[in-house]
């Protein structure tokens, strides 16, 4: 009986879905493309199933009380990604599986090692310095293995890794610690400027540094995606930490000003924007990627062409940048909606983890880490459907890419560990910095979400 009570039943009951998806998906791809199920299909499906079993058992042993929905969702996304990589670049499928396995192990290590995530708070400046060093290193030593025009990678021996993926986690850790410590000052504001209350200027320092960092990424590395992601994280966390919409608005305006300046000064930024605004001006040349992406989406229609029956491979860098277009073509609008629903649940679930923790730092960290996933997903997907210029960042857990998978599994490990922290018996009232009307609303929101949660966890 005691053994039975140790099983993460809910997680276990959800895992059959991500178990079946890679097997069925890869089999369909193989039959669609080659007329028969290749042996690789079985290898991939078996490997993935073992990895998932490892993740599940590992979590049961190492972090039993962690949230039980996050891992099945991520496993399903990874499985779907594996199928798509097998579809688009069969030669890279085994490597993708390898990275999923490495990511799973990393996730387990993080949940085990960081049993007290609050300790990270102490390393906030180390995190900031490490992050800045990584950016500096990439600017100086970055390489561009794919000739994409952006030197976003660092070479370590035979491996290439993308520092921006690690950087996003470091950024969240730093901001969570920094904002939690200075919450009072930031929320209250001490300087009076007309009707505006401003925080003391030294506290704006990190804001300006982050703003500059984002723009530096944009300008020196031509990495609009990472710039948008970092800046989004910054704005979201500033809002969470200070509760002042005004800061977020000012930061957004500053970013807009910076982008406008970059547009005026740099030809490659202008080019990106022009391709975005009018891709049909050069559909065979510079706008080829986005135009082919949109046509792929259109070709899918609602039901989709069927796995292996579309032509998504005409899109350059489809397995990294435009995996959404490939999915839209072969699985249709139906499949795209399912994917969006998965990300919605993932984001909602991550935010629940944030809501369920008492500690200010872990709460900010959990919300920040979830924001990373949400913003990164939104930036690449919005680019894929031409709501914003197309960027080269990955679709979390789905796109091909080792650094991305590893970083996102690390992030997941952190989130799972935070979710396993002891919960407050009842919603704690924060006495620091929250204005009375907001507090009242807080209680309602927390109450509702937690009630749902309690129902589900039995």
């Amino acid at each position, binding site marked *: 009986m005691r053994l039975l009570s140790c099983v993460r039943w809910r997680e276990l009951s959800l895992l059959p879905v991500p178990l079946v998806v890679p097997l069925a998906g890869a089999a369909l791809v193989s039959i669609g493309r080659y007329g028969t199920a290749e042996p690789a299909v079985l290898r991939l499906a078996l490997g993935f199933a073992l990895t998932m079993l490892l993740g599940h058992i590992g979590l049961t042993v190492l972090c039993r009380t962690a949230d039980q929905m996050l891992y099945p969702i991520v496993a399903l996304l990874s499985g779907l990604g594996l199928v798509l990589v097998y579809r688009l670049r069969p030669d890279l499928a085994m490597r993708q599986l390898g990275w999923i396995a490495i990511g799973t192990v990393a996730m387990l290590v993080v949940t085990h090692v960081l049993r007290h995530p609050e300790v990270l708070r102490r390393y906030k400046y180390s995190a900031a310095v490490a992050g800045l060093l990584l950016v500096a290193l990439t600017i100086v030593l970055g390489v561009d293995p794919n000739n994409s025009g952006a030197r976003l990678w660092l070479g370590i021996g035979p491996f290439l890794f993308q520092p921006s993926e690690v950087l996003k986690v470091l950024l969240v850790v730093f901001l969570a610690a920094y904002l939690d410590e200075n919450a009072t000052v930031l929320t209250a504001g001490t300087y009076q400027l007309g009707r505006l209350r401003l925080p003391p200027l030294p506290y704006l320092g990190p804001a300006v540094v982050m703003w500059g960092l984002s723009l530096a990424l944009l300008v020196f590395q031509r990495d609009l995606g990472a710039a948008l992601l970092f800046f989004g994280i910054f704005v979201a966390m500033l*809002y969470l930490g200070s509760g002042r919409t005004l800061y977020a608005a000012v930061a957004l305006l500053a970013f807009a000003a910076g982008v406008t300046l970059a547009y005026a000064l740099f030809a490659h930024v202008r080019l990106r924007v022009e391709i975005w605004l009018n891709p049909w001006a050069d559909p065979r040349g510079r706008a080829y990627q986005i135009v082919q992406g949109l046509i792929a989406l259109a070709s899918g229609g609602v039901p989709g062409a069927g796995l292996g029956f579309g032509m998504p491979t005409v899109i350059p860098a489809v397995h990294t940048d435009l995996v959404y277009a490939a999915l839209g073509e072969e699985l249709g609008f139906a499949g795209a909606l399912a994917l969006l629903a998965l990300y919605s649940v993932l984001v909602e679930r991550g935010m629940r983890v944030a809501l369920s923790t008492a500690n200010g730092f872990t709460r900010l960290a959990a919300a920040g880490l979830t924001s990373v996933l949400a913003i990164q997903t939104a930036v690449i997907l*919005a680019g894929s459907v*031409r709501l914003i210029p197309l960027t080269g960042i990955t679709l979390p857990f789905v796109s091909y890419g080792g650094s991305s998978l590893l970083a996102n599994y690390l992030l997941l490990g952190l989130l799972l560990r935070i979710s396993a922290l002891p919960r407050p018996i009842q919603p704690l009232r924060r006495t620091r910095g929250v204005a009375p009307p907001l507090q009242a609303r807080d209680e309602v929101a927390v109450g509702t979400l937690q009630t749902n949660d309690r129902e589900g966890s039995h």
Partner: protein
Amino acid sequence: MSGRIVRLTHVYLALLLLISAATAYWQVVRGEELRASEYNPRRIEEERRTLRGRILDRRGVELAATQDGQRRYAIPALAHVTGFYSLRYGTSGIERAYDGLLSGRAGEGPITRTMRSLLHQPRRGGHVQLTVDAELQQVADRAIGAAHGAVVLLDVQTGEVLVLLSKPLFDPNRIDAEWEQLRSAPAASSPQCSAQNPCAPLLNRATQGLYAPGSTFKVVTAAAALDSRLLQPNTPLPACTGAYVVDGFRILCQPRCDGVYDLTHALVFSCNAAFGRIGNMLGEERLREYARRFGIGTAIPLEIATTPTQFASGTNLSRPAVASTAFGQGELLMTPLQMALVAAAVANGGELPAPRLVLRTLDRSGNTLEESRPRTLGRVMSPQAAQQLTQMMVLAVEQGYGFQARIPGVRVAGKTGTAQSSNDPAVPDHSWFIGFAPADRPRYAIAVMMEFSGWGSLEAAPVARRVLEAALGRAG
């Protein structure tokens, strides 16, 4: 802080919702349009997978069919009729006009299309059966030989086109390989064109080539004079003495006007001066009206592309211009198809038959979808006038310049034409013949035109005879 977290969560969920709306926009709202985009490589891929339907001649001979993804054309002489089909260069002829049916796109509803795409089946097209006779087409091709030009043979009652030949030919089987060469050929015909040095090979001269009709147009003028009761076949005309002079413009008594004392002999000996005079007796309005009734001045409706013919470039012509028009020069520009219709109208008792190239369309299993029916383009002249004109055209073959078109045992009606092709007298004339047979119970009307070949009586008439003879022999 939890209120902020909830609000931020809502922002993220709203973003994902916005993305799903944008996805729906591209996949559903703009889907159809983008799928049809010229930048969509799937279109070509689907085209490649399509089992395109066959094109058959009137007796069921396979003219075009797809084997192993390759479009194959069996009868080179029908190149301009079937047209070509190329993923790179598009389509022409019947391949273009019936692309929807042949490719299976037409008549495929959204449900069939969805089912087909769900089952990953290739599209299958329907078939087209033409009115042309592959055998006769090849006879015409051999008869006209190396010359540039065209032959059109019509069934006078039904309007069915049995031969529609344009020379030089091109090979639709090798369209991709020879495209550059075909496109770089001279676009306009000249006396320098030859079998070795073909000019405008892709042009369907039968339906789109424009030429001065020369004396073959005298049939139109004669029809106007007879039907409007201006003249009877035996109404005396003033004798030709050297030339007919109108406002200082001299129309010589050529090619032969001696002994011409009525309309019949003016046509038989093709006297320019007499027809110039008749033209001015009719006046521009009346001549133009009869030309219009024959279909001149518009594009003849046909399943494949035709070019509008021309009576004159303007209105209010001078008297010399009307005279020139009446004997077949002036600013007249005719297609061989148009001139075949002139002969067909006379043969059909004055009623102009609508030409048609398609006998029936068939679905992919070979069941008839639609059968085309004979139609008329209107009455040109009274049956009596047509009868009189027929007699005159019989005499033109039996006693006049059309002698080379005589067929033993069959009465042939016809008119030759030798059209001035350039202001330079050294340039050879275009050689024409129009006619029909048998004259007493007309079945087939023909037009033969040969570029820069000289006398119609010596070049075009014998070609017409061979084709008519073959057609009558085949009909039994």
